[in-house]
């Protein structure tokens, strides 16, 4: 039989409120101590708390819900389809809100970067520019344009709305499409030097972060080379979008770590405002530890805003010291 609840009706509103928060465990420590003192001396308050606790326990099971994996997978598939539709619509004409918002959010980040870093980027980008001289496509397109023509058309603004499509995932075939007075389509493989150079150009120059991201993703499948390395370094040091910087950095990690990559990684580690990008740079340095990175690691170990990065820098330093000690023992033997 339910207890008589009228006993609690004479309790003040403040006490009733405290009783509700008490059963939710939402009182502060002093409030809880005071309330429990009052509880001991008031049977009506005790009855109210019992009723509230009973109500809470009554509601727990009927309101509990745990979706099954199958249900969630079905919803994920549906969501994937709906988002693909949204993305396709975005590519067909209007700019998707996500992109325009990303642009608004990410652009100010660039201005926060260190001036020294920006100067280095410009120098590296200039150096890269000297390598990017375009030769005719090895696989001619239906319309006979040389890649030099294409880049010239992009630079002059004659071509717009450039899109990249992967036509052969296994062999790295891509199609580049752009809007002109007439449509222009160029096909080729990712190993084609001229196609790579168009991708380099887009990664370093296109204002749309989506296209820069597509370019960096496609470059992942192209063969490694010095030009590619320099373009990726330039992107890591200069792109305003941290996601693109991170992707470029991951690709740099697949190269043999030389002095140029190490110096770029050190700059990123010391100056990039994004923690994930700094972590990526630290991973590159950890894979190729040399004595010249020790001062920077010490600074990071003490000064980085992120606890994980500080700790990881400390671990790398310790590992380096252990290796050095082991080498000394081996040499003395």
């Amino acid at each position: 039989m339910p207890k008589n609840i009228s006993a609690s009706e004479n309790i003040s509103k403040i006490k009733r409120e405290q009783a509700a928060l008490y059963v939710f465990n939402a009182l502060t420590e002093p409030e809880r101590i005071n309330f429990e003192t009052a509880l001991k001396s008031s049977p009506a308050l005790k009855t109210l708390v019992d009723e509230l606790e009973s109500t809470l326990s009554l509601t727990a099971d009927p309101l509990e819900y745990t979706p099954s994996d199958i249900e969630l997978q079905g919803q994920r598939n549906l969501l994937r389809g709906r988002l693909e539709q949204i993305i396709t619509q975005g590519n067909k004409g209007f700019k998707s809100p996500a992109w325009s918002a990303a642009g608004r959010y990410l652009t100010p980040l660039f201005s926060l970067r260190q001036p020294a870093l920006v100067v280095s980027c410009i120098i590296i980008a200039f150096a890269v520019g000297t390598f990017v001289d375009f030769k005719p496509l090895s696989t001619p397109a239906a319309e006979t344009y040389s890649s030099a023509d294409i880049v010239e058309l992009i630079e002059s603004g004659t071509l717009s709305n450039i899109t990249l499509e992967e036509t052969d995932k296994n062999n790295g075939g891509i199609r580049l499409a752009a809007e002109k007075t007439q449509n222009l389509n160029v096909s080729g493989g990712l190993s084609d030097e001229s196609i790579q150079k168009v991708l380099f150009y887009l990664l370093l120059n296109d204002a749309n972060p989506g296209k820069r991201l597509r370019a960096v993703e496609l470059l992942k499948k192209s063969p490694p080379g010095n030009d590619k390395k320099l373009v990726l370094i330039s992107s890591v040091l200069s792109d305003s979008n941290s996601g693109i910087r991170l992707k470029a950095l991951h690709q740099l990690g697949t190269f043999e770590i030389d002095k140029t990559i190490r110096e770029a990684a050190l700059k990123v580690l010391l100056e990039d405002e994004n923690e994930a990008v700094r972590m990526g740079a630290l991973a590159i340095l950890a894979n190729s530890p040399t004595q010249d990175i020790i001062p920077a690691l010490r600074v990071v170990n003490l000064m980085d805003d992120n606890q994980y990065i500080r700790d990881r820098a400390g671990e790398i330093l310790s590992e380096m010291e252990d290796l050095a000690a082991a080498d000394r023992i081996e040499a003395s033997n």
Partner: protein
Amino acid sequence: MKSETKILIIEAQAGDANAFHDLVAMFDGKIMTLAYQLTQNKQDAEDLYQEAFIKAYKNISKFRFQSEFYTWLYRITINTFYNMKRKLSKYHFQEPDIKGTNDPVSHLSDESHNPQNAHEIQSAVKNAAQNLPLKQRTAFMLKHMQNLKIREIANIMDIGEGTVKKYLFRAMEKLRDELKEYQYA
């Protein structure tokens, strides 16, 4: 926030749809549970899940790492739920799902006349929860079912902590009143 989550968010912000789907897979169990607790109906919960994640996708660039990612998703889910309710004339919310209530002979069993019958209690609790005003229901679900702190609830609902406490108090008063018949069941 885990670094893995952070990296996925950054990649999603750069337009990587696969990274966004990885984030969905990390958090959608919580979101579906919350959606069901708010709507008390599976069909509506699924609609809310879809709309909330589409909104999250469109707005992910606005996420600035100032809160946990799931808190941000909760806020989107709750705001989407409020919008859906506001468009009630266009968007018809279903009655709460009550197990066994569709059974045409269930009322004939002797058990169903017992006020402590599990189905009856379940039905009463769900109706009582549905009858709570939206903000009281939200605060109650976030506190009681999701075990969040008052500060987190205030952040998600974009209100003061004192207001959250008021909502919880009022929700408890109403539930106690509506369910007094079943107390100590």
